[in-house]
């Protein structure tokens, strides 16, 4: 015996019980409340299509609301709670909505609650509280969800007799086979139906499939069929709420299959009659499943309502289990069921049920036009069978109408998929047109949609099946319309006076059954799928406990505070060290490309909008790149390391984009050039040394005269070969040292020793930002925002006059030379500190004419300065504006100036 609890009370289950079976075993018929009217509901099915018996399973971070009691196997200690009721399941205040049902017809909310948006929100507050089903957990999920990829020749979905046979045949033909079954046993329908094939056959078949190398996955649902025969499987390793054995609760499989065989069977249909939603109304095959598989008899006096032969098996199973069959209501005319030995009534369709205390008391039917009633505690209903065609349709298939079965069956598909077994050949049935009161005849049980709701939608013009679905919410519940769609189509067709296939069909979209979000996220739930790239010098920095700053995929030191320094204090100290002495920083994340070959210069003059060809060996220069539409999209430096060998650097944030761009231009646009362009971003680590003492420090490090500004030399530091570039972002005499990343630690240590010896400091991104703003250097993502032309950024004089670079043809567009463009300016505070990101306005209430792209302070002299974009800014130097940030309650009076605040003549670069 297994102990579990339901609504706080402990019960016992048998091994192998679903929660539904266990509840029925304990005589519990009332399990949940419906969504809209809070009607009492019981267990209707024995499968994933269950609309009513939804419970919350587990506790803490493993809480799974809305779990179908028919789709969870009981384990020791399982905790289940009913939901959507208050104060308790048998007495639910929410049931008053049921009394108001005549006014709360389909789409009622579209017709009322008018007034302001705030007024709707008042009503909405109560509607939201009443809606929803279970409560979501608030604690962190303690479990993991794994994802796995697999390939196979044949994927078989469904391990009934057809699926087992197909899997066996394929496996023994030497194919790689995966067989999946959503149940926890194979061949469960054989137990239910008691056919010629039995458990021994299932065991033997299973063993042979495994012996032939086939993989069998139980508790695994093929939930999505995607392009090119990719099927996603969701595998339950632990039951809902259960502690998983190895920490992994579920596994998501992406299976690329050569061929997919669907043996997905069918789902039994309910019938529409008044009060067909009461506990005690069950589907026929479900009843049979409880009787034969679980040994639970859900009723003592049973009425069977059917339009087919299958339900007779249920009657026999019940009878064999000791229940009394008081009537078999067979919708078919005589002699159907004549020789069954059961009390069969032909031309009989159920009209209504009566109940008391959430139990069924009697069933009324129309038999040959006359009304007749029976006392009963269970009605087992079979309205025919709906083939499970979901995956076939997700794969882009079409359907045929099978008139004998009154069902859609799979027809063609554009993918490599076939459907076999009951899903392809459903049982013949007799078409039953409901005769009961439409207002009480439910078709979507969970969402409380009745036949009269369909009628109302029709009367109001919502006649397309999609309109009907959306207007009535039919099929939108957690059972995804598995039980309701065909009933609605039938009613719609009846209204239209057409056959069902002409009434239309809604689309089938993944998933087949609801999929746990944590499973879809997998490990990505922890880092949003954005893996951090680690600096080569990560450990060196980490030992200094810096303030880190995210930058694209990277984290870089933002500042290295000493003692109790704040970020601002540390950054300013670091920046002052650079201005007055020497500082060093890690610039490893810059994009870097090594371009070699006889056509290297020609290639670079396509990528870069500036000239490159005239560079002498050992020299470098600033450059920028345009998108094909002529806007500046990145900048950097280009260096001629050797006759036919160049190094191109560009921004960190744009590194991946630039790598793709360079590869595209080289591979697609210029395949004829004799050049190779290699992305060496992470091959080299980079260290910048900047400040008036940088030259001395570098001389000591490399043991020779350092290169002059914008020159490069190969050198050795700490016995490691390096490339030294004399380039400056800070505005001081500065060097960038590039070293193979694996040796970066040695070079860093040597540099740090020398910088300390000079009395200098490490500096981070924040100080670098101060330095570059004061100097007026651009940053990609700041001033270079993808909307600025070379002219807007005052870079146009550097453009290669010969043209031929990417983006040149975009520059001649008329809007590029019209008045009113944003242009790069400097801003100097007259009063207040300039807030970064603030709008530039002429006065209170005026529309912005530009904005502050970056703000800082003069490092040695103090005073707030900034760079910005301003409409027609080049011609407005000297003008006074307000930099206004209403969201932060900050503003400053500013003067428009040239975008350089430090060493405008560039004298500090020179020796």
């Amino acid at each position, binding site marked *: 015996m297994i102990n579990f609890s339901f609504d706080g009370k402990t019960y016992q289950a048998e091994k192998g019980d679903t929660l539904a079976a266990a509840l029925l075993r304990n005589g519990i018929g009332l399990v949940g409340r419906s*969504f809209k009217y809070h009607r009492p509901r019981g267990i209707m099915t024995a499968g994933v299509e269950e609309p009513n018996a939804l419970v919350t399973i587990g506790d803490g971070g*493993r809480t799974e*609301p809305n779990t179908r009691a028919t789709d969870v196997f009981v384990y020791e200690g399982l905790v289940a709670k009913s939901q959507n009721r208050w104060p308790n399941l048998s007495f639910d205040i929410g049931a008053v909505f049921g009394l108001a049902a005549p006014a709360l*017809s389909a789409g*009622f*909310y579209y*017709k*009322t*609650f*008018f*007034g302001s*948006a*705030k007024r709707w*929100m008042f009503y909405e507050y109560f509607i*939201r509280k009443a*809606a*929803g*089903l*279970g*409560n*979501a*957990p608030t604690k962190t999920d303690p479990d993991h969800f794994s*994802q796995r990829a697999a390939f196979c020749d044949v994927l078989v979905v469904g391990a009934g007799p057809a699926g087992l046979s197909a899997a066996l045949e394929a496996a023994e033909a030497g194919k790689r086979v995966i067989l999946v079954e959503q149940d926890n046993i194979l061949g469960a329908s054989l137990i239910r139906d008691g056919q010629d094939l039995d458990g021994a056959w299932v065991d033997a078949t299973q063993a042979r499939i495994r012996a032939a190398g086939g993989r069998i996955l139980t508790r695994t649902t093929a939930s999505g069929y*995607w392009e090119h025969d990719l099927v*996603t499987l969701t595998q339950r390793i632990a039951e809902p709420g259960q502690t998983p054995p190895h920490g992994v609760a579920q596994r998501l499989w992406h299976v690329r299959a050569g061929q997919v065989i669907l043996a997905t069977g069918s789902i039994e249909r309910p019938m529409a009659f008044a009060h067909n939603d009461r506990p005690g109304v069950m589907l026929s095959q479900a009843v049979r499943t409880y009787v034969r598989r679980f040994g639970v008899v859900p009723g003592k006096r049973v009425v069977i309502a059917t339009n087919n032969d299958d339900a007779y098996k249920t009657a026999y199973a019940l009878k064999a289990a000791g229940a009394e069959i008081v009537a078999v209501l067979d919708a078919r005319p005589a002699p159907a069921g004549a020789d069954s030995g059961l009390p069969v009534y032909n031309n009989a369709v159920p009209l209504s049920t009566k109940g008391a205390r959430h139990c069924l008391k009697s069933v009324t039917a129309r038999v040959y036009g006359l009304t007749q009633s029976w006392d009963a505690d269970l009605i087992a209903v079979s309205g025919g069978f709906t083939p499970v065609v979901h995956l076939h349709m997700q794969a882009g298939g079409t359907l045929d109408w099978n008139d004998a079965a009154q069902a859609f069956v799979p027809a063609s598909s554009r993918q490599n998929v076939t459907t076999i077994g009951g899903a392809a050949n459903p049982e013949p049935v007799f078409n039953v047109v409901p005769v009961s009161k439409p207002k009480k005849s439910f078709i979507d049980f969970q969402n409380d949609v009745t036949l009269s709701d369909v009628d*109302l939608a029709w*009367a109001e*013009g919502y006649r397309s099946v999609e*309109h009907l679905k959306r*207007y009535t*919410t039919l099929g939108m519940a*957690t059972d*995804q319309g598995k039980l309701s769609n065909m009933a609605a189509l039938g009613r719609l067709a009846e209204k239209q006076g057409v056959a069902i296939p002409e009434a239309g069909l809604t689309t089938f*979209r993944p*998933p087949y059954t609801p999929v*746990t*979000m*944590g499973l879809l*996220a*997998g490990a990505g*739930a922890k*880092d*949003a799928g954005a893996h*951090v790239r680690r600096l080569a010098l990560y450990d060196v920095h980490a030992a200094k406990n810096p303030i880190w*700053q*995210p930058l694209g995929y990277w984290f870089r030191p933002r500042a290295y505070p000493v003692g109790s320094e704040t970020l601002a204090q540390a950054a300013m100290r670091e920046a002052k060290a650079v201005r007055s002495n020497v500082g060093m920083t890690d610039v490893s994340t810059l994009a870097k490309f090594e371009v070699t070959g006889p056509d290297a210069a020609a290639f670079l003059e396509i990528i870069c909008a500036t000239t490159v060809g005239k560079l002498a060996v050992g020299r470098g220069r600033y450059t920028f790149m345009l998108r094909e*539409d002529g806007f500046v999209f990145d900048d950097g430096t280009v260096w001629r390391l050797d006759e036919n060998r160049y190094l191109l650097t560009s921004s960190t944030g744009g590194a991946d984009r630039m790598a*793709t761009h360079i590869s595209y231009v080289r591979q697609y646009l210029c395949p004829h050039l004799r050049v190779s362009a290699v992305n060496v971003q992470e091959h080299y680590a980079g260290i910048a040394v900047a400040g008036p003492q940088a030259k001395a420090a570098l001389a000591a490090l490399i043991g020779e005269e350092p290169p002059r500004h914008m020159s490069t030399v190969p050198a050795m530091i700490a016995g490691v070969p390096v490339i030294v570039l004399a380039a400056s972002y800070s505005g001081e005499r500065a060097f960038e040292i590039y070293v193979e990343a694996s040796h970066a630690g040695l070079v860093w240590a040597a540099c740090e020793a020398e910088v300390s010896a000079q009395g200098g400091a490490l500096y981070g991104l924040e100080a670098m930002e101060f330095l570059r703003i004061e100097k007026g250097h651009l940053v990609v993502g700041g001033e270079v925002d*993808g909307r600025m032309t070379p002219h807007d950024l005052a870079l146009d004089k550097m453009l290669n006059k010969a043209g031929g670079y990417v983006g040149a043809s975009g520059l001649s*567009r008329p*809007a590029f030379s019209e008045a009113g463009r944003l242009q790069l300016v400097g801003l100097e505070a007259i009063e207040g500190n300039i807030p*970064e*990101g603030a*709008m530039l306005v002429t006065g209170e209430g*005026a*529309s*912005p004419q530009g*904005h502050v792209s970056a703000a800082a302070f003069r490092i040695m002299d103090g005073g707030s300065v900034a760079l910005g974009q301003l409409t027609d800014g080049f011609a407005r130097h000297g003008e006074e504006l307000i930099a206004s940030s209403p*969201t*932060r309650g900050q503003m400053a009076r500013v003067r428009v100036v040239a975008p350089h605040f430090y060493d405008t003549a560039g004298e500090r670069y020179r020796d």
Partner: protein
Amino acid sequence: MSQYSAFGLLRGALNGQKHWQPAWRDPEPKSHYDIIIIGGGGHGLATAYYLAKVHGLKNIAVLEKGWIGGGNTGRNTTIVRSNYRLKPLHDLFEFGLKMWEHLSDELNYNVMFSPRGAMFLGHSDADMTKLAERGDAMRCDGIDADLMTRDEVRKLEPLLDMSRSARFPIEGGLIQRRGGTARHDAVAWGYARGADSLGVDIIQKCEVTGFVRDGDAVVGVETTRGRINAGRVGICVAGHSGHVAGLAGLKLPVESQTLQAMVTEGVKPMINSVIMSQSLHCYISQSDKGGIVFGGDPDNWPSYAQSGNPMVMERAVAQGLALVPALSRLRMVRTWSGVTDMSFDGAPIIGETPMKNLFLNGGWCYGGFKATPASGWTYAHTLATGKAHALNAPFALDRFERGATIDETGSGPMPNSR
């Protein structure tokens, strides 16, 4: 048109709700209309409504190849907001947002516009500065926007992961309190009912298969229900703009891509606002039925196949769970996808085409739903007068060749923004 009211519902409670009339007629197409709008989505129906209501035109048809509201109107994440950085965008969307605030009354159809706040989360100081910039741009143009501290964010959405060690720690946010969600289908249906009552013919199952031309002018359309002549024709079929414009021989700055969204099973209220992120591309809200509605990136490659893609979906869910870990045990119950017109600057196109009497409304990327009223209003103005309204003038088709793109993200002409 029978007026909708609570009284009507109570009356219906007594008569079995039998007194309601069809929300719109099902007319046969006439041989000539003054204005034909191709596309019976929210935008096309709104356009027809305002043409009739504001411009007094009577002889108007909306041609819909399937059923109204069946395209992207019924396949989005229902978010309504105007929190854009660039002026032409926030002006257009703000005009629309103001209309949303009274739309239910205007249409006598509850579109359930629920301004419970549209919040962008910031995950670093740099994010917060960018959010402040966006908010400042809005505020200076008279649009509400407020920066939020971490504590304010936590108070509004207690289930967000506020830990400092998160991969994308939450440093604060920017909220537009007047933003929120609406009921997407209701917008199409409400406009349809309103337009129909003003005499507009809404013709479903009527696909346009070609244009009737007289020189460089369009004088009508060929449809699956025959030729229909028209004074002016407005294309309004976002997702398929390229296809329909192609029937007139036009090539557009548009690539069609699939955008997926999904919803979980319903749960009691847990998400109170619309959550978006400055660094991640996912958006999360909770519907009135309790489902958590989730969206992410478009597929980033051209497609008309509404078949969806697990890779894109799993990435969006990973991002969402990184923000709201409590979503882990909810179950995704339904997915859908729409074919979106990805324009080459991320902004819509509303205005004239090189052909006389042919107009275009499209290129909405993944942001068209919220613009429905403003799109209809400005397009109606354009169709009625032959000239752009001040609000849609910047969104002219020729802005691309002119170089006057409206590029909110600055990512340039490739919609997949490599």
